[in-house]
């Protein structure tokens, strides 16, 4: 019981800090006032929560589509007409993932223009790569004897996928989603330079005007958000897969 509760401590802590950094920024500003006076941080055009919500929305929407597309594509490679595409897809995803997110974001501008939609599309595309990669590798690494006995016991291909292969690949898929979300949180800040809004706006404006407090105002919540998400996924991994074997990458 105690051990179970202990798992909830890090996410709770990060959540608390995150909320503090959003709703009680004045405290932090006061505490850091020795850094010098803030030019615009405390009387910004919109409240901090506005940028936070913009950021969260950007990440949620793009992660959602990344998941849907990545998982669909990954599962499709298990079916006959698409099986041959598995290797090329995996190779392509691995290759594209080495490219920096900013390159994908920057390339979306000449192709799609400025604003939120192009950034979301770029994030969806970039974020689906780790998911796709992990689902393909996760399904591939289900042990041969498990596959064989599932077939040998008379499971239909569909039952095999749903009841055996998918649950065993799930830890890998979850790890892929985690990578994807964290990448998206980071890439979404860069999206600010392409007119997508979010917390990156504060950081970029802070850098441009040399306003240290404004930088902190944007950078602190976005870092804490990343920590929070990271710890939530760690919690989920422990809760769901802590006591059984699965395919881990």
């Amino acid at each position: 019981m105690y051990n179970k509760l202990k798992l909830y401590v890090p996410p709770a802590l990060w959540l608390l800090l995150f909320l503090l950094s959003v709703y009680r920024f004045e405290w932090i500003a006061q505490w850091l006032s020795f850094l010098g006076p803030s030019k615009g941080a405390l009387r910004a055009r919109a409240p901090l929560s506005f940028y936070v919500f913009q950021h969260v929305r950007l990440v949620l929407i793009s992660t959602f589509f990344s998941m849907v597309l990545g998982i669909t594509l990954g599962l499709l490679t298990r079916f006959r007409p698409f099986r041959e595409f598995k290797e090329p897809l995996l190779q392509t995803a691995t290759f594209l993932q080495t490219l920096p997110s900013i390159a994908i974001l920057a390339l979306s501008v000449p192709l799609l223009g400025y604003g939120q939609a192009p950034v979301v599309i770029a994030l969806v595309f970039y974020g689906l790569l780790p998911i796709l990669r992990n689902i393909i590798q996760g399904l591939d690494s289900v042990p041969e004897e498990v596959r064989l006995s599932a077939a040998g016991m008379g499971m239909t291909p569909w039952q095999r996928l749903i009841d055996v292969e998918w649950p065993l690949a799930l830890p890998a898929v979850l790890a892929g989603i985690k990578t994807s979300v964290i990448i998206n949180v980071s890439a979404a800040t860069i999206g600010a330079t392409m007119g997508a809004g979010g917390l990156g706006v504060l950081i970029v404006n802070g850098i441009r005007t040399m306003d240290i407090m404004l930088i902190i105002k944007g950078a602190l919540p976005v870092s804490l958000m990343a920590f929070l998400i990271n710890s939530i996924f760690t919690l989920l991994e422990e809760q769901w897969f802590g006591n059984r074997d699965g395919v881990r990458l």
Partner: protein
Amino acid sequence: MSENKKLGYGKVGNLGAALYAVSALFFPYIQYRPNRVLTGEAYRLWQIDGMQGIIYCAIMLVISLLLFVLPHKRRFMRALLTLAAVFMTLFSLGQSAASLTSGDSIARASMGAGFWLSLASVFLMLSAARLEYVHDRLFQNALTLFSLSIFFVLLFLGVFDGLSVMREYLNRKETFLSQASAHLILASTSVGAATLLGVPLAFALFSRKRLERAVFFLVNLGQTIPTLSLLGLLMVPLGYLSSKYQIIKSLGISGVGFWPAWIALFIYALFPILHNALAGLQMVDPAVTQAAFSVGMTKNQVFYKVQIPLAIPLMISGVRTALTQAMGNAVLAALIGGGGLGSLIFLGLAQSAPDLILLGTLPLVLLTFLTDALLGRVVVALDKGGSL
């Protein structure tokens, strides 16, 4: 049985070949703008300059058709045809851009959706061709190398000079070259320094369980911080210190410029390097170290002759990750006046000049790809123990 009667590539390559034909026929290959400001008109490949475009288009169609009807066994012919397809995609782009804008220094021609599709289809065909030579690593690498050199040869021959990106390049040759080299210096020196610090640090930390766990925790957190956020947060103490102490300022360290960017990249590179060096040391099979002790090696000998050599491939792959990441992250340096390819990209974003964005991004993509591929080869070559 049916193996012998099958035609063409497998499904992947056939899809590529089909898309190749479609891209040449139906999609706008080139975007033409009379000048930098006016909105452009789209040209399909066969619409360009009388016979020229039609000939290119026809050649591409023939390649695609041949790929479909060649017997499945003729894989070498197919590999050659794929290389021809790579050539035609690039060559027809350059030639048609040149003929559209010839003699008109204001007019701009840039890549259209058709070209990008054609490039993607070529990529599909290449990966299918590589798949056909699955047991022949040498030939696979040769295929990649040949397609890359086709690109570079055409580039140096000036075939792409009619393209707007190249026009942009020729206009800003000096700036581009200096920014590109600044980019390389920024990324490589920070990663080099991180390697010099990180690897010995990992050795020192190794087998101190508590410290190791603390480091893994920190590294895990550090890798989670958004890069831009780290860069911004780093400006805070540096800016503060330089405003407070004259010595630091006189060293050239302040909140903006080269150094904060360098330090941010350095810290960011430290994470994967530390992580992999530690993981590499931990991964060495205890049976192997035991065997080394049992033949009479001293603790130091075991460390230097057994543990380090076995951990090196994973360490290098940490450097590979760090350098690939740094190539991308160095773009952000431009935001705080650190220079690099990012200055072109952000200038392009600010001026809505797509050509400028491309001029920054395309070399970046190429650089990242080359770094990753080269260091990847190094890792494979070093990995004699097969630990990866």
